[in-house]
């Protein structure tokens, strides 16, 4: 019998304590970010989709189309094309397509790049209703950006 | 302590194997390759015909020359935990697996996983049981080789109920039939799946 009352009292008390806690939070400021109206800056290491790094002088991509990223990609979502040009050492990048629909954002492409020509973009507002919008032409994106 | 105890207990399972095993081993002493298949082979001794076993061995001869499997010792083998991750490795013929599971259960082991390996070059399937102990670190691996065309092995799901799902999974992936299993239906694969994706000759 005493256990019954003890439980009753402690139980009721616990219920009021719970109400107290939620009541306290009711008057505290909200912690959420109102997303479409407010944005967060991504941290510098954020792994978004990849983008080409331009050469500081020429503004052209630093990529030499060696194809290491293509080879290292687990999902096979990168395709690189380059061509030999006279007077230029190595190959010149002609096409860099990232199929973002299959990309798993693992970052192995950036890691495998020996020429420091790839980095992660900090874009994260990527939404579209069409699949084609996620086949990125990175050279075009680079030009648009600059 | 536990390791020694379980090793001794498991060794008892090998007593009659050695006797049977010596005969074919002596006959084929010239052959340098005697894979763990030999462990499975005596299991079929009970069957009247020897021909499939022989044929299989001749098949695997060329293949296993490349594979270069070390000869399986008759009895549980202690392994280096640091490099391998387990302590005891016991290759057993399929019909001994239940007895081994009983021994392990008595010693308080729990089942970690059951899985298969497809040794297509040797036309064999291997079932691998991982056991571990809650109190003392001692991981025991029981493995058993089966004929790839007729992969059958008795279930241990009556000893370890947890094996039920692991066996179903192994059946899904390899088509290994666990005889006596209460409900050997596809678990992870669709209900009507008639393929076994982890077989090496499976192409999606």
């Amino acid at each position, binding site marked *: 019998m005493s256990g019954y009352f003890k*439980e009753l009292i*402690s*139980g009721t008390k*616990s*219920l009021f*304590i*719970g109400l107290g*806690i*939620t009541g306290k939070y009711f008057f505290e400021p909200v*912690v959420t970010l109102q997303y479409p109206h407010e944005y967060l800056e991504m*941290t510098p*290491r*954020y*792994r978004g989709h990849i983008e080409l790094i331009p050469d500081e002088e020429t503004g052209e991509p630093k990529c030499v189309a060696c194809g290491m990223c293509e080879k*290292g*990609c*687990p*999902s096979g979502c990168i395709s690189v094309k380059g061509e030999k040009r006279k007077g230029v050492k190595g190959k010149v990048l002609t096409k860099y397509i990232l199929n973002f629909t299959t990309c*798993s*954002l*693992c*970052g*192995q492409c950036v890691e495998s790049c020996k020429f420091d020509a790839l980095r992660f973009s900090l874009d994260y507002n990527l939404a579209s209703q069409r699949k084609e919008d996620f086949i990125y032409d990175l050279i075009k994106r680079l030009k648009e950006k600059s | 302590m536990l390791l020694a105890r379980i090793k001794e207990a498991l060794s008892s399972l090998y007593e009659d194997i050695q006797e049977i095993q010596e005969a074919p081993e002596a006959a084929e002493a010239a052959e340098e390759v005697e894979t763990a298949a030999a462990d499975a082979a005596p299991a079929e001794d009970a069957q009247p015909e020897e021909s499939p076993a022989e044929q299989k061995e001749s098949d695997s001869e060329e293949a296993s020359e490349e594979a270069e499997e070390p000869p399986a010792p008759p009895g549980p083998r202690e392994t280096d935990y*640091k*490099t*391998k*991750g*387990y302590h005891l490795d016991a290759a057993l013929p399929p019909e001994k697996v239940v007895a081994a599971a009983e021994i392990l*259960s008595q010693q*308080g*082991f*729990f*089942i*970690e*996983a059951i*899985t298969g*390996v*497809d040794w297509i070059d040797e036309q064999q399937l291997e079932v*691998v049981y*991982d056991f*571990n102990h*809650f*109190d003392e*670190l001692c*991981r025991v*691996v029981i493995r058993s080789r089966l004929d790839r065309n007729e992969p059958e092995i008795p279930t241990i799901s009556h000893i*370890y*109920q*947890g094996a*039920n*799902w*692991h066996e179903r*999974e192994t059946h899904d*992936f390899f088509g290994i039939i666990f005889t006596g299993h209460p409900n050997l239906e*596809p*678990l*992870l*694969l*669709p209900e009507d799946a008639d393929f076994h994706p*982890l077989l090496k000759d499976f192409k999606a």
Partner: protein
Amino acid sequence: MNGLLQQDLNQETFTINLGPQHPATHGVLRVKLVMDGEYIVEAEPVLGYIHRMHEKMGENRTWAKFLPNCGRMDYLCALSYNHGYVAAIERAAGIEVPERAEYIRVITVELNRISSHLLWFGAFVLDLGGFTPLLYAFDDREQILDLLESVTGSRLTYCYFRFGGVYNDIDDSFITGTREFIKRLRERLPMYDALVTKNIILIKRLKDIGPISKDMARRYGATGPVARGSGINFDVRKHEPYSVYSEFDFDIPVYEEGDSMARYMVRMKEMEQSMRIIEQALDKLPEGDIQPKKAVKMVKPEKGDYYHAVEAARGSFGVRLVSNGTNTAYRLKLRSPTYSNLSLFGEATKGMLLPDALALMGSLDLVIPEIDR
């Protein structure tokens, strides 16, 4: 009269499909329940709705290319899976890991464990009908995700560990941020305690509900908090210390009762222990490289089979790999803890009421992609 019900009226029992789309199954698990009124006569989980055959993928791609897959199984404690996989290959290929990298691994994995437990805590109380603790737990969890994002670059599927080390080094802001977070969580845990743990309704719903005996846990191979809630002192971090866990002083919370409350308490206490580990690791964090001096390029483990287990948030995650000496796995078996933990659901729920069974299911902490793989 409606036919559907009339049909069942003639039977003593009826069958009910819990899932694959059901609020309590956290994903796409289906449980076939044979019910007698609200009592469960038989429960049979049906799996495989998001089965992706990771093991086959492991056989088809190089060791390194499988790394991103790890985070896609247990997405709530992705780093543990990452850790288990790289550790197995390090064992197989004999790769030495610099000490600093090991420390970083421990710190991030423990943070990840806390975040996983926090999410479980919220989702579990949500299963029991309390919505608000979920949001509070998310508030805390976001802090961890921010911290981990600043290091790994990702919030959920980290893919942070590499063979022989980690991908990025941690910086001072991470260290101070982590310390601040620990301080914050230490203040928040008593709040959770008062709001949820001590709440009489929750106690009534969990105490003595869904007991799992020691023997049952053993027969089903249950590990992690499920086993520890049944009085089994088994934690891979202590049992077969991998990485640098042997250098830290922490306890394994073990509760003897075996009921849902015990499993709940184990996880709540584990968060505290994880914080202890992180603090010690931050104090002891050595300087040095985060990758081996000789860069690991092509991994080709020696022929043979290897096993490595780590303690993921939900139990012992094991990787059994069979190598044939090439740069891809011959066989890659991933032993997921919840697969075993869930397998006892059928036996444990016999004769139980539906809401109790759901409380039990919640206390098992299911992550369906991990079960289905």
